[in-house]
């Protein structure tokens, strides 16, 4: 969990303390479309998972990444 938050914070270039699993793209200015794509790449590489292209628009909050990390 912490690794995901840390990763998101690094990619979005904001403080870890400002992020939680509930943080949503629409709330954060830094989470634009480029950052969104970057986060997908970073999560894939960091956790060794694949997120299908069709699912990418369905991810709107940090916690939405969890099911790829845990479920596979």
């Amino acid at each position, binding site marked *: 969990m912490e690794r995901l938050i840390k990763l998101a914070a690094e990619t979005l270039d904001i403080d870890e303390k400002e992020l939680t699993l509930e943080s949503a793209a629409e709330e954060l200015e830094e989470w634009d479309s480029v950052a969104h*794509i970057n986060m997908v*790449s970073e999560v*894939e*590489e960091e956790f060794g998972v694949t997120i299908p*292209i069709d699912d*990418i628009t369905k991810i709107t909050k940090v916690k939405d990444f969890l099911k790829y990390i845990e479920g596979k």
Partner: protein
Amino acid sequence: MNVAAVSNINIESLAKRIKKEHDIYFPEGFGVWVQEIINPGSSLYASSPECLVVLLDGEELLRGISYESAEDVQQELAAAIGHIESAVQAHADISFFVSNLDIQPRDIKSVKEPRYERLIEGIWLEMLNGLNDRHENLYIFDIKRLIEESGRREFYSPKLWYLGGMRYSLKGEKLLKKEIGRYFNAHKGVRKKCLLLDLDNTMWGGIIGEDGMEGIQLSEQKEGARYKDFQRRIKEMKDQGTILAIVSKNNMEDALEVIENHPHMVLKKEDFAAMKINWNLKAQNIADLAEELNLGLDSFVFIDDNPVERDSVKSELPQVQVADFPEDTSEMELLATELSFDNFFYLKSSEEDKKKTEMYRQNAERATDMKSSASFEGFLKSLNSTIRVWSIKEQDILRAAQLTQKTNQFNLTTKRYTEKDIQDFINSEEYDIYISSVEDKYGDNGIISELILKKEGTTAVLDTFLMSCRVMGRFVEDQLIHFIHNRLKEEGFTKFRTHFYPTKKNKPVKDLFERLGYTVIEEDGDGNKTYEMDLTGTITCEHEYGEMVID
């Protein structure tokens, strides 16, 4: 240093990565690369870049054009090259890094049908080579090499392409960022200056002092070739302007014999600016080199196969870059290539660069003394060595015999014995054999020393004392001799006599017993020496770094 990058594809993500380390300008939108470089008043030129990366995607460059139509392809590529050439000509003060092309073969065809992707890559390359020749300020950015080495599946991301017109995967972007960074540094002349090389098991396989010219591995074919190929790359690095120096624990004559006479030696004596071939601490040698060559320690890269040496230099001289050594020595050539890209990367070599070694060698002849701040003692203690000694057992006989036959450097009397000889010593009342092993924080070195003693009344004589070169330079011999003194004293001996019989290889122990405080009672014209130690006085040991365990 200001830099800029343009592309015919979306490189915003890549540029943002580069931005963390370099002040980079890249245009908004990506169809505009031609305008940005053609227009002298563009924001790109207004940012005053010293370097400009032109990263072009082959497929996009030829979108809508049939690969089969040679004329159309030629025209399109020539147009692009034309724009680049005018920009290069108009801005001679900017270094242009223009990429070669990679064109992924996508369409499915039967094998018989001709494919044109590689031909097209070649047409572009030919034009680029022309620009490279005609213009000093243009360099070819070798993206093709990055793609070939990682593979297209790793380098490209279809997902990112479909989502945002981003061609490269995360891995691809990281590789590009690294490579672009190398070009920028090379432009600034930021690089390491000097490569320090060990000899045994680095320039050739084996140990010259032990194996001799016939025994070391260095050849054109088969296993020895891995070292010859390594040497070839090192020689090329020297030809570009990298200074080479040797730092090796060896007898000068042994080392020079290989360097000057081995038929497969690629590097010659003149290729080295300096040669520190002696039995001193390597960190001390390197510190001396820094002084003699007048180079900062942070401009050195050190290659050595021995992890003990590597760690010693890392801890004594943290500014020196210590190269990781491959576990698999079939990767020796790869080591050289990677080091050259990471540390000794040149956009071009001037005549001056090529003559560097000559220049440094001359300067080095004006050596000065340097105070060493290396704490050798601290390092030795940190090894946490345990020296085990025991009276020879049945299972040690084979190894004991082998050691007498193989050991050449640390061998006082060089007497060669067979297993039967050893067995006879064991059976005899007159002889004692002690065996020793050393374990340290790096692991168990196994049996590394053997001492054969002969009893003659109240005098004990050292028939054989040998030690593996693996543990030389750590004063293990001091502790072993100290143990023998105490043991002999307990057993009632009053005198201990030892000998040194010189051979071509055992120079390292020529003055061992002088150092240990023995009296020379006899010496002949050939250098054979007899020593004596009085066991009745107090016995001390000056150098104790390992823990002795007596079994």
